[in-house]
Each structure stands twice: as structure tokens, then as C-alpha cells.
């Protein structure tokens, strides 16, 4: 589904990604872990199309498309979804309006008819139940005055409505208490499907107790230094990141 090959990315004069390789297949859940400043969030942002980054080398191919050539909205319509680390507050734009506009943009792109108001409400209510959000959220401004946990739940609600093929979760666990973490993880788990891939970027192993990854990668210095299964995450939790760096340096 996603193949990243030798990706080099710069922001200003700072080289952030330095030859990153990653392959993600449908049905898989990947966790990308790494110390602060390793380039985890940059990777998620670059894949979603945030400007301000310069790709100096390498490619990212998504379902046969040159992903990096597409504007962000085209990526979204093709099924790429980024759950933001810091979801943006947009006063004056209704949450429900954004959900519906996003869903209809995706449907239109797929050649499907727009959802009518009734169908949409039924769909959203069902997804909100999953995220344990009450209906008052719908008519509030996007993320406006939401707590940290509410914002993250809102991200996963959007994901549930948009049904992406490739979901990128950027530090979705940060700022969550244990109850909110459970709700968010439960939401994500319910969205695991054979035709959907999930890439989680996280600093802590904690999230992985709730969302079990098939593959774990260690990102450091803009490169993936080591890959393994979920036992790698446990090892990182115990031993930190330095041994991976040393191992890579020695190799």
C-alpha cells in the first residue's frame, strides 16, 4: 500500500529525514518509535502533505501514485488520513460541517453520490457512540474549547467517518489519561481491517499495550535503524533507544 524509498526531507537548512525506507501493506499496523527529534512527526506530516518541508531525495508511493506529488486534499480523497498530534481549533466552523464536507469530498472523488443529511446523521451518531462522544460535539466549532482527550477522540471520530485506507496517527496517545487512551485505542482497533493499514508514530510503548502493532520500527537521526515485531517495543521500553543507535553505528 505504501512504499517509502530512500526519503530525504529538509525543513529550512535542517535535514530531518535521511534516507528513510518503509513498506506498509494492507491490513498491517506499524508503530514508528523513536526519541524526540528523530523525525517521526515530520514523516507523518510529509506523508499528509504539509508544506514547509522539502523532499530532496527519494520517493513515497501509495497505491501506485507518487504520493508526494499530490496536494493534501487529493491524498485525503485517495484515502490517506492524518490524525494530528495537535488538532487545530477552528472557531466558526462546525464540527459536523467539516465531517460532512470531508466525507462528501471523499465520496465525490470515488464517484459515489453525496450522503444526504439523514444518512449522514445516522452514520455520525453510530461513530460517535464508538468514541463515547455526546451529540453536543457536533455543533461546536472544530476542536473549539475541547480538552486534550476530546480533541484526540475527535480525530479518531473523523477517521471513523472518512474510512481511510492508510491512517497515520501522530502521537495520538500524547496528553491522554488512561480512560481516554482506552477509548481512543478501542476506536482505532475497531477500524482495523484487512484492506486498511495503520501507521502509528509514538514516543511511548504505552499505546502499543492497547493497539497491538504487527511491526515496530525505530526511527533515529532520520532513518529507520531497526525493525521488528511487538517484542521490539517492549525491549525499547526496558532498554531505551541508545543501544539501537550503538548497534546501528557498529554495523
Amino acid at each position: 500500500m505504501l512504499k517509502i524509498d530512500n526519503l530525504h526531507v529538509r525543513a529550512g537548512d535542517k535535514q530531518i529525514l535521511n534516507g528513510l525506507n518503509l513498506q506498509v501493506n494492507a491490513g498491517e499496523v506499524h508503530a514508528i518509535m523513536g526519541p524526540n527529534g528523530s523525525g517521526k512527526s515530520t514523516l507523518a506530516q510529509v506523508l499528509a502533505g504539509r508544506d514547509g518541508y522539502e523532499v530532496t531525495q527519494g520517493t513515497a508511493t501509495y497505491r501506485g501514485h507518487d504520493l508526494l506529488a499530490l496536494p493534501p486534499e487529493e491524498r485525503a480523497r485517495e484515502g490517506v488520513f492524518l490524525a494530528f498530534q495537535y488538532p487545530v481549533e477552528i472557531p466558526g466552523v462546525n464540527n459536523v460541517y467539516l465531517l460532512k464536507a470531508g466525507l462528501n469530498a471523499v465520496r465525490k472523488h470515488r464517484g459515489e453520490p453525496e450522503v444526504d443529511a439523514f444518512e449522514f446523521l445516522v452514520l455520525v451518531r453510530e461513530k460517535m457512540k464508538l468514541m463515547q462522544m455526546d451529540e453536543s460535539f457536533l455543533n461546536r466549532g472544530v476542536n473549539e474549547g475541547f480538552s486534550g482527550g476530546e480533541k484526540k477522540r475527535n480525530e479518531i471520530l473523523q477517521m471513523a467517518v472518512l474510512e481511510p485506507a492508510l491512517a497515520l496517527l501522530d502521537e495520538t496517545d500524547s496528553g491522554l489519561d488512561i480512560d481516554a487512551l482506552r477509548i481512543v485505542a478501542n476506536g482505532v482497533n475497531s477500524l482495523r481491517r484487512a484492506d486498511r493499514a495503520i501507521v502509528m508514530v509514538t514516543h511511548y510503548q504505552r499505546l502499543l499495550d492497547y493497539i497491538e502493532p504487527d511491526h515496530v520500527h525505530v526511527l533515529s537521526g532520520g532513518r529507520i535503524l531497526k525493525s521488528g515485531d511487538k517484542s521490539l517495543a517492549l525491549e525499547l521500553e526496558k532498554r531505551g533507544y541508545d543501544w539501537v543507535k550503538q548497534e546501528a553505528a557498529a554495523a
Partner: protein
Amino acid sequence: MNAIVANSASAALERYRALFEARYSASDALTAMRRSALERFISAGFPTQRNEDWKYTNLRRLESRNFTAGNAAPIAADEALWIPGAGTRIVFVNGHAMPGLASAVAHPPGVTILTLAAWIENDPAAVATFLAQHAGTAATAFEDLNTAFSQDGVVIDIADGVALDQPIYVVHQWAAGSSLQMSHPRIIVRVGRNSRCSIIEHYVGSPEAETFTNVATSLEIAAGAHLTHYRIQQESLRGFHVGNVRAHLGRDSHYANHNMALGASIGRVDIKASLSEPGAHVSLSGLFAPDGTQHLDTHTLVDHIAPHTTSEEEYRGVADGRGRGVFNGKVIVRKDAQKIDAQQSNRNLLLSATAEIDTKPELEIYANDVKCSHGATTGQLDSTALFYLRSRGLSEGDARALLIRAFAESILTSIGHEPVHKYLEQHLHERYAQIGAVT
């Protein structure tokens, strides 16, 4: 060079004198009043940018035009231009009242609506007395010009203890092809004690016409009365619009002004509220939205004369293209006017590199027990919010339009009258759908 400018300026002023002489020859008190206003206007001339109050607004184009007084022109009722269901409608075309276009509803009890033309005909001495109270040293150049030339307008008297459930909706419309005509309407509203009412001023232009509207609005709000005042300016994009609003607030009275500056090539509105009795409260809110080459200037003045008076003000500006917006919000707290609460905020959005907004809060505080706050910001669309919306599948144009609308429409939240709210929302929706799509 200076001599040439001075000559053309005085030539322009002489044109106004010639127009005046051609129209008024009587020797009654009203004509004398008009003449002295004209002489004040001519000796002061059009305000120039050397005048601090006009620092950002250049009137040379207005000054150079050879306007003639607006002709009464019969037009068909134009429901499409008017706000549907807005209230008891009174229509002026090219500055002249058109009774045939007014809504058929009988005037509500306790309300007297008289056209200025009728008042002048019935009782010119009373009009002269009224204008004398409102002219004099405090009048601005454009108020003097209005006094000299005002032919028509409306005088609305609300008796004591009357609550109107429908606003009074005053439309000032230019008929198609009214180029180089001018109108100096006068709107007078006197709200009796403990009465409640709303008034809507709506300026609609003939799209291509180069017209000049110079309106003066006087509002007297008696003790305990509430007046809500909507001012919606949608003049021709080649036209000129100048408005002066003066509101005098009595004890425990409330005045809310919603000012929407949307049309005109050059638009300037001055809103002055005098809180002369304790308990008076004024709230000013508005939006100025210059696009293309529009220049829209808003000056407000809240004068806390009496202690225990309060004011709140929120203005937003959105400028695109080579549009230029000006906001000047002045608050005066007079000596001994203690226990004042005055708040002001102005937030502006620039949509292009060539758009400009100049904002200036001005506080003059001569009392010590006061709570005053003000804040002004000017910025561009939030790129993170834009990316967020696009990452959910919205096109860049749609995302921009959505953010611009959200910013502009926030000023509508305080508009309680549903037809006006809806009308403005629809207008902003269409206006910014286009801007969003241009990118």
C-alpha cells in the same frame, strides 16, 4: 503645483455653491441654516489627509466628481435587492421617498414616521430648530454638507413605553443609470422612555453607477430605552458612501449598532455615541470587507460623559486584492466619569499581499476608576488550519472560503434579528465562495 491643487479644490467647492444657489433662494430660517452650513463646508473644504481623522483616506476622487442632486426616479419594487421580511419598509430612490414601495403595513401604534421632505413642507421652522441643535461647531464637514443639501430622509418618533416587534427598515437605493448623482439623506430617530425598537439602514447601489451618498443619522435614546441599529452598506463598487451616526444615550438606555461596510469604492462611516447619563450602555460591532480596490474606513467614538456607563466594541476587517481597510476606535472617559467599563477589540484578516488594514485604538482617559481594555490584531489565514481542512479532503479554495467565512461571520453572532442575520450570512457566503475559488 500646490496652487493648481488649491484651485481645483476651490473649483470643486464652488460647484457645490452653484448647486446650492440654483436650488435655494428663500430667506427663511431653514435656508439660512443651510447656507451657514454650506459656508462652513466651503471654508473648511473636503477633509484632506493632513487631518488626523482622515489620515488614511484620500478624497480627491470624490472631490473631483461633478455630482448633481439625485432625481426622483420611479423604479419597480425590487424584492431581490431588499432584505426579505426585514420589517416595516420605507424606500428612498435616489434620495427621494417612494411611498409606493413602502410596505403596506400600517404604522404600528405609538410610532410616527414622517419623511423629512414632508416635515420641511409642514414645519420648516421646526426642521431649522432641529438642525441647529445638531449643527454648529461639532458638525463634521460632511454633516455640514448634508445640512446644506438634505432634501429628504425620515423622522421616526417612538412614543414612551412602546415595544416594536418588527424593525423599521429604511432602504436607500440608487436606480440603474444614476451616475454622478448625489443624495444627502437625513435620518432622525427618537426613541421614547422605556421603548424598544430596531432600525435597519440599508444602502443599495446601482452596480456600475458612480454615486455619492452622504447620510447623517441622529439617534436620541431616552431613559430606559433600547435601540438596535443595523447599518448595511452595499453601494455601487464605483460609488462613494459617507455616513455620520450620532447617538445620544439617556439614563439606563441601551444602544447596539451593527455596522456592515461591504460596498462602495470609497466608504467612510463615523459612529459617535455619547453616554451622557449613568447606566447607559453601548455596544458597537461591525465588519469592513474591502475587496478589489475598495477603500473602507470606519471611525467610532464612544464618549463616556457620565459615570457608571459601559461600552463594548468588536470590529473585524477582511481585506483582499488591493482593498484597504481603516479602523479607528476612540474611547473618551471624561473627568469624573468614574466606574466606567469600556472594552474594544479589532481583529483583521489580510487575504493578499497587496491588501492593507490600518487599525488604531485611541483611549483618552481622564478619570481614575475605570476599566478599559483594547486589542487589535492583523494577520493572515492560519496555515495550520488550512492544512487541517485540506487534510480532511476539502479543496484549498473551499478551505480558504470556509476559514474566511468563519472569521467574518463571527461578527454576525450578535445579530438577533433572523432576516438580517440570514441575509448577511448569505451575502458573506457568496462573497467568499468566490474569493476562495480564485486561488
